[in-house]
């Protein structure tokens, strides 16, 4: 009997866990269930496990159990108080070599992508970056199911499904907000296993001299509940004011499609799409965005999409839950007024 291990890296900074880690525990549980039948046939065990590094972060390990991990490998060491590539990848690679996970998922965040490539190379295995779809499936010539990792390529115009046939772990970095957040079970139980880091401060190679905090908090569109996004149809950068007004009424933030970024109309942090951010708000309003594929892949998982475009053929309508064909300079002011009226009505 063997144990098939589905691993998730838990990303934390100063004790704050990146939500993608929990999303991945959810998808890892789902993947594990997809091999349950074939594992049972062979008498194999299937487990979901988390890997966590940090300094005094045991509470997070406990939380990981609540989000669905059966077991947490915890490397608690002052050297990894803050993320640095070398100690992190060496510590993780050592634990992975010891327990031989079958699948290893890492959030495709800035930190995660820095880490994943290094771990994969150290373990001499394959890594599929920036995935938006995962499933366990049959692959010809392989006796057990493999991880089928799907990712957009070429600016989101193509979806490629990648497999790693003979090497383990099968690694993927996964975009935030692609998978839903799992239920949290405060009563969940499981094991926390402490592992040594095996890297001293001297071996860390780099030294962080200081942290510079952003002067102004950049707009965080990735986890916003409401995004109002503008495209070329706005015609001028000044017209983002109108988008901002609508976003304000809805308590949301402003996003943009690539042409606006290319034209320098708005900060690239606000770009939604393949070359920007993947978002999954409760409400996404696309105004004057034609809906090139590269934009759609970044927002089509939104819970509800309203598209406003003067061209009834605009591809954005293909992904919209509801569309308004018309001049956005007329539609948006009307929408603002109606939402305000709606709010007042709801308040009384």
């Amino acid at each position, binding site marked *: 009997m063997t144990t098939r291990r589905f691993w998730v890296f838990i990303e934390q900074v100063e004790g704050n866990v990146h939500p993608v880690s929990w999303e991945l525990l959810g998808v890892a549980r789902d993947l594990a269930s997809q091999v349950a039948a074939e594992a049972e046939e062979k008498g194999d065990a299937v487990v979901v496990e988390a890997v966590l590094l940090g300094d005094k972060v045991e509470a997070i390990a406990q939380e990981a159990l609540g989000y669905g991990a059966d077991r947490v490998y915890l490397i608690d060491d002052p050297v990894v108080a803050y993320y640095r590539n070398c100690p992190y990848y060496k510590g993780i690679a050592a634990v992975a070599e010891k327990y031989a996970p079958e699948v290893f998922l890492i959030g495709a965040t800035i930190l995660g992508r820095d880490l994943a490539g290094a771990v*994969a*190379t150290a373990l001499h295995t394959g890594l599929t*970056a920036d995935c938006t779809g995962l499933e366990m499936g049959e692959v010809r010539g392989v006796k057990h199911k493999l991880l089928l990792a799907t990712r957009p390529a070429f600016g989101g115009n193509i*979806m490629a499904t*990648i497999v790693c046939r003979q090497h383990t772990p099968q690694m993927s970095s996964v975009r935030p907000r692609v998978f839903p957040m799992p239920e949290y079970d405060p009563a969940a139980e499981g094991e926390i296993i402490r592992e040594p880091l095996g890297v001293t401060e001297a071996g860390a*190679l780099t*030294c962080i001299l*200081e942290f510079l905090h952003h002067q102004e908090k950049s707009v965080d569109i990735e986890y916003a509940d409401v995004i109002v996004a503008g495209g070329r149809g706005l015609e001028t950068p000044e017209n983002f004011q109108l988008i901002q007004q609508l976003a304000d009424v809805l308590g949301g933030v402003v996003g943009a499609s690539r042409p606006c970024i290319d034209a320098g109309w708005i900060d690239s942090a606000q770009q939604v799409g393949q070359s920007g951010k993947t978002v999954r708000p409760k409400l996404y309003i696309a105004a004057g965005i034609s809906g090139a594929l590269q934009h759609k892949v970044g927002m089509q998982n939104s819970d509800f999409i309203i598209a406003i475009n003067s061209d009834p053929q605009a591809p954005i309508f293909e992904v919209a839950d509801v569309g308004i064909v018309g001049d956005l300079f007329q*539609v948006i002011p009307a*929408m603002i007024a109606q939402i305000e009226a709606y709010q007042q009505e709801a308040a009384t």
Partner: protein
Amino acid sequence: MFHALVAIKQVPDTTNIRIDPETGNLVREGVPAIMNPYDAHALAEAVKWKRKLGGKVTVVSMGPPSFITTIREAIELGADRGILLSDRKFAGADTLATSYVLAAAIEVIHKEEPISLLFFGKQAIDGDTAQVGPGVAVRLELPILTYATKIRAVDLENGFVTVERHTEHWVEVVETPMPTMLTCEKEIAEIPFAPLPDLIRSLRYDPEIWTMSAGPLEFDKQQVGVLGSPTIVFKMGTPPLPEPGEKFNTREVGVEKAVKLALDKAAAAGVLQAVLGGAQ
């Protein structure tokens, strides 16, 4: 001496990719090939420091002979030497095999002329993997600073570099011993408009071409190309499209009515209540 190594890749301009509606395949006709923009910015920074400290910039790339144009472009932007790692056996490489070939070549270059800093773009715009840089760094056991936005200081005497790199939360100021690898964001440097003499030199420049064995090293054929790649493409397809929702045309029903009908749909789905609840 300051010696910067810059790894560059030629990529199809992804803003111009389209899919053949009949076959579902990628149409490459009419798609311009460009230097990966992140690499170009990394190169610009390398050249800036060369101009400041004296020294040399070497560029290296792995790809088919058509990549020569991109190497020439690097010369135009101020690189001194260009090496193209090109062999049909390298084809089909995933990031692991690519990092092997680059690391092996860089090791040889380093032996000839010790490298101070390695510059990579943060990712290539065709694959967007951001894996090759970290992979090469691990193979060469070099410190790596990804998402570098600024080089504050290069201390050749003591062998240290101070770099700003951004994370999701803040900008870190990091010091590491050289040689070190940086994967660079676009803001690390503006791409300069090359002087005419540099452009003319680049037009006449023939890069060195290293193949499996014709070059200063022999590559391990188990580690290159398809053989050295653990991942394979299982299938390709166009992204699936959901069922489109209803459209209301302002020309037909008027602006007010169209907006109302749309918002009613959002309300019926419970969305409006959910988000406005949060706004109050």
